[in-house]
């Protein structure tokens, strides 16, 4: 029987591992605690939820049913699905085309236009709310389409995303010119090259855009509150407001509603996690 020599692990490496795991565990606790608190509070009575308890003394699953009914979540959920899908498709379409043009086509003023577009990323979103509101109001007045209280005001302003264009442009620019030359020899033009070569190669950044755009649309609150004044097109985040009034908040229902609200985001992230992390790792960017 051959006696294997037991590998000696130096103390400093063990200490280093313990320290690393400790930091990671603390990080996990910090990241997970709000979710735990949300779920725990969503199962409490209102009295308990107002206090400092961490664990409910009695589980109130009925809070979810009440929250669903109180906030008319079925309508708001359907609205959010519609708004998010329309925004997503619009944003993907315009971002892919614009990013391709900036990355692979040469035209006068290309870099200047791209620079100007990039500079708008420095403007805080809230600053743009009033100008955007005035613009959509004006468009509603002059055009045949009703914008306020309708899907155009909720979706069209978000179809042009500078961040998405920038992210895709960086990826598209890395695709070797030889591929385009080969595609040209095969008779492909720009559009066909984009669809058949560029997009399949850029699956990871496309997934990032899908996830970020989905989250952005799904969680939107300030803008939808401004451009809608009836429930017909209001998204799910507005439903959560139903649990706050002038004198307090139904914090248990609100947390139940919040959990319902984030389920679609969790599902999407679950399915796109691999591409998402891959893309972030490649680009070194954070959303």
């Amino acid at each position, binding site marked *: 029987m051959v006696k294997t020599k037991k590998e000696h692990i130096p103390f400093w490496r063990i200490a280093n591992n313990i320290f690393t795991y400790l930091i990671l565990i603390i990080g996990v606790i910090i990241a997970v605690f709000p979710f735990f608190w949300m779920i725990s509070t969503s199962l409490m009575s*209102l*009295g308990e939820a107002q206090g400092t308890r961490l664990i409910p003394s009695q589980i109130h699953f009925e809070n979810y049913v009440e929250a669903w009914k109180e906030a008319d979540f079925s309508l708001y959920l359907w609205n959010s699905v519609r708004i998010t*899908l329309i925004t997503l498709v619009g944003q993907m379409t315009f971002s892919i085309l614009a990013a391709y043009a900036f990355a692979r086509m040469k035209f006068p003023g290309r870099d200047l236009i791209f620079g100007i577009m990039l500079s708008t990323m420095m403007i805080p979103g809230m600053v743009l709310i009033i100008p955007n509101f005035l613009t959509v*109001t004006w468009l*509603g007045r002059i055009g045949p389409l009703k914008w306020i209280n309708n899907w155009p005001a909720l979706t069209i302003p978000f179809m042009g995303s500078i961040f998405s264009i920038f992210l895709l442009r960086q990826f598209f620019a890395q695709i070797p010119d030889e591929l385009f030359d080969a595609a040209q020899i095969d008779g492909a033009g720009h559009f066909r090259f984009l669809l058949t070569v560029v997009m399949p190669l850029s699956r990871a950044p496309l997934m990032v855009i899908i996830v970020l755009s989905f989250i952005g649309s799904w969680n939107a609150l300030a803008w939808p509150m401004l451009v809608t*004044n009836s429930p017909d097109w209001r998204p799910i985040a507005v439903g959560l407001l139903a649990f706050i009034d002038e004198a307090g908040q139904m914090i248990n229902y609100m947390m139940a509603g919040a959990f319902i609200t984030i389920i679609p985001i969790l599902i999407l992230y679950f399915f796109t996690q691999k591409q998402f992390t891959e893309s972030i790792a490649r680009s070194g960017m954070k959303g």
Partner: protein
Amino acid sequence: MYKKRLMSILMVLVALSLVLAACKPAATPTEAPAPTKVEVKQPEPTEVPPEPTEVPPEPTEVVTEEAPKPSVDPSGQTISFWHVWGQGLPNETMTAVVDEFNQTNEYGITVEAIDQGRYGDLEDAFNAAIQSGDLPDIVVGYTNALANWYSVDAIVDLEPLINDPFYGLTDEDKAAFFEGALNGGVNAGGTTIGFPISQSENVLFYNSGWAKELGFDNPPTTPEEFKAQACAAAEANNNDDDPNNDGTGGLVLYPGASNIMSWIFAFGGDIVNEDGSGYDFTNQSVVDVATFLKDLWDNGCAFQTESYPNPEFASRKALYTMSSTAGLPYQVSAFEAEDAIKDEWTLIPFPGPNGNKAVDLYGQYVAVVNTNPERMMASWLFIKYFTSPEAQAKWIQGSAYYPTRTDTIPLLDSYSKENPIWSNALSYLDYGKAEPAWPSWSSVRRSVGDTFQAILQGTPEDIPTLLDELNTAAAEAVAETQ
């Protein structure tokens, strides 16, 4: 293979988006009603010619009054009502009252009630709607917000509607309303811009059970008694075995404008200057309130919490809290929690010098949006219905607010018996006083909160300077809104 799949997915997504967009037909563009000054015509005096008769009429002194005729025809109007009661029993009651009106009104008027979130959200939505033209017909709002909207002609003077000979209120009806509630809807220029559908009060929540254990059998009736009880409670918490409650026990002192105003009213003062043209934060009552609260704070008889102090009040960490009566359901829930101390508690008015007492009245005021005479009259008819004693009694029972007319109170007898704490504060309506219905009040009330927070953190010597600065800021706010 892969690119085909990608293409297919893209095509499906595009098709889906178009289907979704078309799923709900775009609402028919409605023309924003042109702003019109309300002109509810008074009925013209009609002379009815005497019918020819062969029998000479006998001289009589009986003069028959002509019945007033309608000045406009509100029949068939569909009006929208923006409100802030989107959840729970208030929402159910609001919906029930609106449905009842829709089914029973003889003019075929249909009201669509739309929840707009909180008051702030509603104000944002209304301000945005002024731009877009998508205005409702009736809107709920704080009177300072209504004053702003009136100043840009978005809402109208209600007097012509209230006094309309055919559709308006009778003298009996008018007399039935609490004067304070009606006056609260009048702006600085004397125009009635809001009509009170109900009201709530800023009161003191008082743990009478704990106070009795501390040796106080009755609620405080003067600031001195108030301080004695608050300090005794704070001392009890500091001296017990529980280190977690040290520094608590007295008054939860959030120096928001409504709380400060309640104290100022209780001290017999006001913040409006003598000629009613602006604010005066340097008068003796305001100084006395600032000194009193500062003294409570410095002696450890008042403290602050990070959120609504309902759990603190339900666990003997606060003998008093200051809150709107609209917060009653939340406080009741806090006492139902497992770790709550099931003390007896009640609502009391703010005590002032010489036994004076006061509460700050908040009205739930509605305004009529400037549309056209027919729509405005239809809106008024709904408001009139909503504030009729029977409908108001339903609304009160569903919302836990207080009535704005005295003849609603008898209809709330059984509700009063079932809700003794609510019932307690019913009698305080007589001591109620409203905050100014001025456009500048929105910004001034923020300054009031900031100033009193600074007073608590500063030294007693800072009080005159800080109040002077508040006066200057308030004067600037008035100038900006004129």
